[in-house]
């Protein structure tokens, strides 16, 4: 896959991610509550899009690269054109077996983002890696509300953390 195609794929992946996030948000206010089946399918699409986003960015080159210790889950090498296989497991490989940990899980699992969660509200400035489809402010939590799939406002946000939040959206059931 050359760089141009990788860019197009990247853009498509980002668009699908944006659409998926808005759907996930919208489903929270749906009558009858969150639907497990729908949430599962949404998160699978998001994971595929995330994987493709990462792989196409790898192909684009190291410009503005963030440290990406997250290993590529996909089997596709840069030379191939196939859509990578979405992994059946939710967790990336460096995640420990997570039970019912709270938000602090981000600290140990998200190696991309070295800051502890508390400082994460600050934007990282003009990091080129900032996915711009993520909302810039963290959703305000109502008192007593459990955290669902709330994407963080960290500008250099890794999409692996996004998938963690997806996991919590499912495990919140």
């Amino acid at each position: 896959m050359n760089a141009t195609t990788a860019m197009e794929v990247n853009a498509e992946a980002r668009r699908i991610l944006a659409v998926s996030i808005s759907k996930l948000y919208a489903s929270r206010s749906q009558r009858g509550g969150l639907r497990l089946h729908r949430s599962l399918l949404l998160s699978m699409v998001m994971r595929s899009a995330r994987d493709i986003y990462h792989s196409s960015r790898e192909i684009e080159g190291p410009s503005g690269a963030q440290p990406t210790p997250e290993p590529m889950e996909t089997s596709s090498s840069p030379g191939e054109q196939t859509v990578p296989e979405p992994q059946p497991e939710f967790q990336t490989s460096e995640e420990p077996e997570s039970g019912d940990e709270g938000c602090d899980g981000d600290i140990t699992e998200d190696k991309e983002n070295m800051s502890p969660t508390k400082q994460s509200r600050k934007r990282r400035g003009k990091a080129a890696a900032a996915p711009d489809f993520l909302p810039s402010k963290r959703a305000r939590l109502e008192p007593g509300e459990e955290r669902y799939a709330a994407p963080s406002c960290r500008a250099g946000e890794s999409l692996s953390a996004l998938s963690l939040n997806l996991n919590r959206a499912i495990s919140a059931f």
Partner: protein
Amino acid sequence: MAGAGGGNSDVQWCFSQVKGAIDDDVAEADIISTVEFNHSGELLATGDKGGRVVIFQQEPESKNQPQCRGEYNVYSTFQSHEPEFDYLKSLEIEEKINKIRWLPQKNAAQFLLSTNDKTIKLWKISERDKRPEGYNLKEEDGRYRDLNTVTTLRVPVFRPMDLMVEASPRRVFANAHTYHINSISVNSDCETYLSADDLRINLWNLEINDRSFNIVDIKPTNMEELTEVITAAEFHPNQCNTFVYSSSKGTIRLCDMRASALCDQHAKQFEEPEDPNNRSFFSEIISSISDVKFSHSGRYMMTRDYLSVKIWDLNMESRPVETYQVHEYLRSKLCSLYENDCIFDKFECCWNGNDSVVMTGSYNNFFRMFDRGYRQDVTLEASRENSKPRSVLKPRKVSTGGKRKKDEISVDSLDFNKKILHTAWHPLDNIIAVATTNNLYIFQEKLN
């Protein structure tokens, strides 16, 4: 080729009736959510988003019009489920009727099971055409008489009255499902039934509403490891120990309740390997099975996923014996269908009485029939424009290539808000019920 049905390729379908409001402004509560004939085909039940059940009864065939089978008219209407609130989870429980299943008739009364997301109810529908008159202590209107005026004694007698159809809830099966119920199925033993939600299947006795047995549980210990959910389940029509359930991953598992109390180990698993050429972002969504139905014979089962209908032989797990493409032209449009949510639509499917033809819905108020014997298929449309009595339905065609022929409709002109998710076929005759958003169409075979 005019139509498909009953193993005879000459079947033509005619409009018979349409039920429901005419205006385009659809009230959400009127959206039909399930359609089901009873075992004789005399009764046709629909459930809607507002929690109501409407039952139609077929009129006896009249000697004046032997060309027509009897019409269906409203027999009973009742409110089956009401909206509820789960205070513990701060969640509203929708009153929408997800499924209706009839029990085989044992006496004069009819029984059906109706379910919403959380609660199943057994309803008794009975007729009353006589009432007692001539009470000693009460007036005819129910007011108690002044005892001083009672001077004689008489025995009340039953006198005929206008037919009244009463629906009364006989059992309420509640609090057994954490997730949303998607299926109910009555066992051939007529004593038990199953209810399935996203992760569990429970077995009930129709007489006992405070207990159920869990027979399938696919909930992982850690919910973050969840990869698939149950999408539909059904008992085998003849073997009371056998049932199947389908999953969001496109697999069907057949279980034998004699093997163990908890049927997590399947007896058979039906799965077709995915075609790698068709891989896309949305492969998982479109392979999710939305409906599974046994044939009447019990030899086959049919599954519906987003783009196709597959017929499986229960003796062969590796691949379906037949695959029918419902609307393959949508494969290139999956991204748009994802954006407008249509890709999540759950289409149902059904068999005709002798298992020779299968039917399922599509968009633009189209529905499709596949004749298994003659290898023919037809696309028909349910619309008010074709609703002159006994007018023959003309086959429709969607043009997929560049050149659109006359009378064909292009893919981009399809109305994706007009979808047919629920269809039902009379168990014995060529009469079908097709639900558009808020209307119920009844079509019959043209009889000469």
